[in-house]
């Protein structure tokens, strides 16, 4: 097989032939995303059929148009689910980034190699905890009979509280535990970018008489912009999904708390695995994907109009 075809036009084939080893190295990854992510997009069709557990071919199932979406809409939960999902995600994105940048800046200014190393590791430690363990921690802290909170309250003679029946408290708890578990990850990423900033900038600013606050504001923060944008880019992609593990493990199937804690992901999962309502599950999933996609595209278009440099893509 030594014949080499050199096309006259320098087209796609020529390019792939020139770099065929590179292309072959990339091929498994492309195939993976093709099978794992692009092929299931065809399955959006499930949302338009009457699901049949006895059939494996979706194109043989009865086409029912938008009926599944109608049911989903009539369930009356869609608005609440959407608000919950987007609300939580915006809170997560804003708070994690603010906290991570603040602590990364502070940490980078610390003296003492060991203190720095140890605290940095400790702050990252919660990221190692699985969501199953997180649910153990939460239960351990807040359960009615033996939880730490009620043990402490009783010691001070106060009435114990049953948080597992108080939906509003969980808005706060979910956000706090999300931050606890995840902020260390973003913090280390920001720390890495700060480490990459050349010392010369700081030296020059010092000579010009800038104090540490000015140096942080005018050098460090602007230099973190790229990192922030890329983290935002990936966070926004999941704005209609996001953190299924967190919600499902912290709340589980506790219907008392659904009004404030049910998000699209948990709703879809319960439809698929608990109530076996496939039509509803697919319709909700499709709604989630398309609504999220439109949302990101809109945000991106607006940003692009204001300032092209800040556009995500």
């Amino acid at each position, binding site marked *: 097989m030594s014949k080499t075809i050199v096309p006259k036009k320098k087209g796609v084939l020529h390019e792939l032939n020139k770099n065929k080893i590179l292309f072959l190295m990339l091929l498994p*990854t492309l195939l993976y995303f093709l099978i794992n992510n692009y092929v299931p997009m065809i399955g959006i069709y499930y949302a338009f059929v009457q699901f049949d557990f006895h059939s494996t071919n979706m194109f043989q199932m009865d086409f029912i148009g938008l009926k599944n979406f109608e049911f989903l809409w009539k369930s009356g939960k869609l608005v609440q689910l959407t608000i919950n999902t987007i609300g939580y995600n915006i809170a997560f994105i804003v708070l994690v980034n603010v906290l991570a940048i603040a602590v990364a800046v502070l940490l980078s200014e610390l003296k003492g190699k060991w203190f720095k190393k140890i605290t940095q590791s400790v702050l990252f430690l919660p990221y190692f905890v699985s969501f199953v363990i997180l649910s153990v921690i939460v239960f351990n*802290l807040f359960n009615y009979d033996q939880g730490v909170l009620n*043990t402490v309250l009783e010691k001070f003679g106060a009435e114990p509280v049953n948080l597992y029946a108080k939906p509003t408290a969980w808005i706060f708890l979910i956000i706090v535990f999300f931050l606890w578990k995840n902020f260390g990850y973003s913090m280390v990423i920001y720390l890495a970018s700060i480490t990459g900033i050349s010392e010369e900038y700081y030296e020059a600013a010092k000579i010009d008489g800038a104090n540490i606050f000015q140096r942080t504001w005018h050098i460090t923060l602007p230099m973190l912009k790229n990192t922030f944008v890329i983290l935002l880019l990936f966070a926004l992609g999941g704005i209609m999904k996001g953190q299924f593990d967190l919600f499902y493990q912290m709340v589980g199937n506790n219907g008392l708390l659904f009004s404030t804690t049910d998000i699209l992901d948990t709703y879809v999962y319960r439809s698929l695995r608990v109530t076996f309502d496939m039509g509803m599950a697919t319709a909700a999933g499709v709604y989630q994907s398309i609504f999220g996609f439109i949302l990101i595209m809109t945000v991106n278009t607006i940003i692009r109009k204001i300032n092209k440099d800040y556009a995500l893509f």
Partner: protein
Amino acid sequence: MKIKEDGATKWFRLIAYVVVLVGSVLCLLPFLLIVSASLTSNEEIVRDGYNLIPSQFTLDAYKVVFMFPEDLLRAYGVTTLVTIVGTAVGLLLMTMAGYVLQRKDFKYRNFFSFVIYFTTLFGGGLVPYYMLITNYLKFSNTLYALIWPSLMTPFLIILMRSFINSAVPDEVVESAKIDGANDFVIYYRVVLPLAVPGLATVGLFLALHYWNDWFHSALFINDTAKYQLQFYLYNIINTSNFLNSIGAGAGIVLSGPVPSESMKMAMAVVVTGPILLLYPFIQRYFVKGLTIGAVKG
């Protein structure tokens, strides 16, 4: 010569020490809670509730956990195997992809990067994915169902790409090329050795993901012998909560030991321990390995 620090710097440092110290304590507290509860006797927990420091230390809970170790060890085996295979294969594929996507002479690098990134923006949703794994790939009840779904993520590929881009100078690749090395040889002789911090960091994230995964067991595995460690723990916790809620004295006969509060905590320690041990080995590469750049490049 030591430059004298101005007042602002001193204040800044003071705030920094306080914030970092308080943050560290808050991050450690829940760990302390679990470890101490695992060392408390179950009677004390039921009687007095959870305390930060147990009045009497006991290893009873750990003894109970290891009394019938078959299921636990099997779940350990599944998770360990899945973690090692998944991390190894994932790292191989992602380093290759990251290397290719940062090569300036690979014309379609931005297009392919976007093809990969696009999957985070739009997807078919959970049901079509469930159908893909169970009906088309036929992975249900096999370890493939646990390895395949987490093999690669766009974020880690971009992370890898940025790292290789900053750690491997273009001139090094160029000179290797002039010496007659092909692109794959350059990848494993030149790029991989220089990319060790990136490998360690991405490897840790990947391993962590596999180790902590319970979701894919819940979705695709019915055979209890193939449960991952986290899902095994999840089931024990739920059984325990369920028994508590109906009252343990309802006359139900259990084949294993009744999971107690302190035993749950001991399990949590046993389940998290091994992956924590990995961290000290990775730590020195950590900050260095986390360089992240744009999707376009």
